[in-house]
């Protein structure tokens, strides 16, 4: 098995929470992603063995959901919203800017493995459109100019932990609403931040 003991233990803990093993598939895929940054075929084999379904069934689920990445992503996953609210607030300019800076098309990763660019559907920040996510940490009220400075900052500092509130403070514009919970922990990889899977940054 290509998973170490610690990861297997963690997986077994997750599996135990469900009456049927196969129900743990979703969280296990996140666990796999926390390991590699994407769902590798090796991980699929491990998961299939752990929960007793075939590899291709795991593959089927993992390729259906777009947040399970099928290929390694860069250090920073840039998700720009292209849904209606953002679109009418000029997200296409933001997208154009991102593409200009990174030179990437949709779902591409640069050669250095720093940026992955994707266009996504609604990320739930319509009030603060246009919105953009760095490693799933949301910044609202973006303009092409703030996008440029955001990228300059990312390139220069290459921060390990990305925290939404910090990004918002530095580069964001209008906010949809005051977020109830201060999100200070952020994420440490280009995967969603889950406390369970050790993908959140340390809280400040």
């Amino acid at each position, binding site marked *: 098995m290509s998973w170490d003991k610690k990861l297997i233990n963690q997986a077994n803990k997750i599996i135990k929470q469900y009456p049927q093993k196969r129900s743990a598939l979703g969280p296990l895929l996140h666990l796999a992603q926390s390991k590699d940054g994407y769902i590798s*075929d090796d991980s699929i084999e491990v998961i299939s063995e752990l929960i007793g379904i*075939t*590899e*291709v069934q795991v*593959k*089927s689920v993992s390729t259906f959901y*777009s947040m399970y990445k099928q290929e390694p992503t860069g250090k920073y996953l840039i998700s720009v919203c292209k849904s209606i609210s953002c679109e009418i607030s000029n997200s296409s300019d933001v997208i154009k800017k991102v593409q200009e800076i990174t030179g990437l098309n949709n779902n591409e990763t640069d050669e250095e493995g720093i940026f992955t660019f994707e266009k996504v559907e609604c990320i739930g920040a319509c009030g603060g459109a246009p919105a953009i996510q760095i490693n799933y940490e949301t910044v609202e009220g973006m303009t092409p100019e703030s996008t440029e400075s955001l990228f300059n900052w990312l390139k220069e500092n290459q921060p390990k932990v990305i925290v939404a509130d910090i990004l918002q403070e530095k580069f964001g514009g209008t906010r949809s609403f005051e977020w109830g919970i201060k999100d200070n922990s952020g994420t440490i990889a280009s995967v969603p931040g889950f406390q369970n899977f050790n993908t959140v940054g340390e809280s400040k």
Partner: protein
Amino acid sequence: MNEMVKINVNGIEIQADNNKLLIEACEDSGIHIPRFCWHKRLDPVGMCRMCLVEVDTPRGKALVPSCTTKVTPNLVVDTESEVVKKAQEGVLEFLLINHPLDCPICDKAGECPLQDQTVSYGPGESRFVEEKRHFEKPISISEIILLDRERCILCARCTRFSDEISGDPLIEFVQRGNKTEVNTFPNEPFRSYFSGNTVQICPVGALTSTSYRFKARPWDLKATTSTCNGCTVGCTVELNASQNKMLRILGVDNDSVNQGWLCDKGRYNFEFLNNQSRLKESLEKVNEKFEIISNKDLINKLKNKILNNENKVKFLLGTNLTNEEYAAFNEFSALISKSKSDFYLSDDYLFNGYFEKNISLATFNNLDTADTIVIWSEDIKENLPILYLRVRQAVKNGTKLIILGHNNSTLKDIASDFYSSDIIDENFELKVQPENLKNLKDAVIGKNVTAIIGKSSPYQNKKSLDLLVSFLNENSNLSLLNSFSKGNSFGAFQNLDSVKGLPDLCKDFEEDLPEVLFIVGADPIGSSVLTNKITSILEKINCIVSLDLFIHQTNELANYVVPMNSTVSEKEGTFTNIEFRSSKINKITPSPGKALSENEFLSNLLSSLGKSTDFLSVHELNTKVAENNFNQVNKITFDELDKPSNFDGIISGKEVNINCTFFIEDKSLYYVGRKLYGDSVTQRNSQSISILGSKKYIQANLSTIKTLDLEAGKCYIEQNGLKLSSELIINENIPDGLIYFPINRRNFVKYNFAEKINISNISNEDILSVQ
């Protein structure tokens, strides 16, 4: 509960089963609703939207998919309204957005639901001008199945079949949206014993088989319904031939037997019929070499042999003859010899079975109504694949499953109890009395039980089976299937006066060697664990006459070899399956070369002997078979069996004549069994599946492998100078300390499993030097 209710379809009132889906209820009343994804034997998904119909709802008329809508009383349905037509046109226009219009080069064209329904319900033209989806074409998803993904309309029939019915979901949808495709996991091919069914139920030409691809157009095919004689299940099949060549076998939905499905061996193990190496002329061995001899000369020579040795003529029969041919041999033997003759059947798993009057005989449908199914037999997935599907189906519908023995581990996941090495020792003897098995007791006492009982291994002593059967018979309402798995074994039991096994043959022939031995469609040297003994006996016999399709290890020892017709498609007759259900075997292709059917050969021989023959034609023989048969109400004559009311076959009673007295006495040190695919002479000569049975391997669990100081991978198997290279594979379902040998691999039967066999890993240097 099922209840007939009134519904109104297209203004006509019909009676419909309130438990059925609308699409099925309409079908029953002759109203066809177009569909792609819905299949009678699969769960509905409502995937394709082709079956949209308009129903009246409290909020007015609404379009609903009829494959996910159940019949309700007074439902008003319109299947042909303008709205429905528009919906159907829309669905088809969408489906044809990406479906290539390559019908002229597509195998499905001519029998393609998409093509047919586009003609009947389609819009006539498309507004789509953009580029269609493209995929690499075709990709092989297994050794025998090919997939053209751009043709796929994502109906999920194949993926549902492999998940729901065969239980080996190795194909699934991957990706999503307009990128969705059916595929396997990399390096995990769709190696299912039932994969051919997906080709048959695919409503477009996306799935094709290597066997039939580009071989014929459907409108050129001749078709006839027949019965598969591959195992004792006796699936109803449709034979397709063109220009006198067998090209395809399809499953036919026989509700009582195979319900439309076939195993891949039944489906593809016919290609040997067209094989160049098939026997076409009679052969005589002259100076250790076979030379062609005319049938007339052959009959003359045999005549003299038989006349001189009237009581010393014996018969070793294979299991692939028709009832009529068994009856013919029976008659033949009675006519040429003064004493009653025994027939030896080439099947290592033969024993007297459980046919006593106080044990009632099961049908497959009993599996569905039973409270509990108890299995102790050889692996049914390997040897009776469609019975395996029926068991799975029954368990899915709530029947309890209890398995004894180390076989049938593929059913372990759905079995409530799997009694393996804790309860049963390495020679398949019970370590515990059945009444002491609490779960078994609870599941059996006072319940309806259907048991599938047979030898788990050629070496198994039937004592423990007796214990189990008498326990079940005393404590439950038992119906039993004797799981003899080879071909038309049950026809042999019914139509021969006395059937014996190979251990009997060894014992009997050692005492009294026959002068003339007829070996008919049997290859015991290539398939029996008694091969060494049998070889030495056969070598001593003066005159062996082999009637067969090919030259193989056994008839290489013969003095005369006579080409025969194959039961697959070259003769007419009847077949009796494991439930004693008789059905018809039909002919669709002519005899190759000078091949005869068994009864033609026998009647020629008899008339040369000056005996009167009253079984010249297969029809006369059939009348005889039907007369002798137990079921006198529904006689199994061709005429009766051809009636549509007898489509499911006729259950013909259970009088059997098995008289085995000797058994293999050695205790096996190894766990042996037969796999579906093997090195049989027919499979070897069927191109598309020959490779599937040729790989040599043995299996053991990891701890056994470690205990023996071995590693999984290439190994040598060695005993008494026979050294074969093989693969050692880890299989955790094999009990501790046992090594599993699939005995239908080339030369594996030559090992003496009662003695130690040396297994050693092949080192890397050896592998290199071999290469």
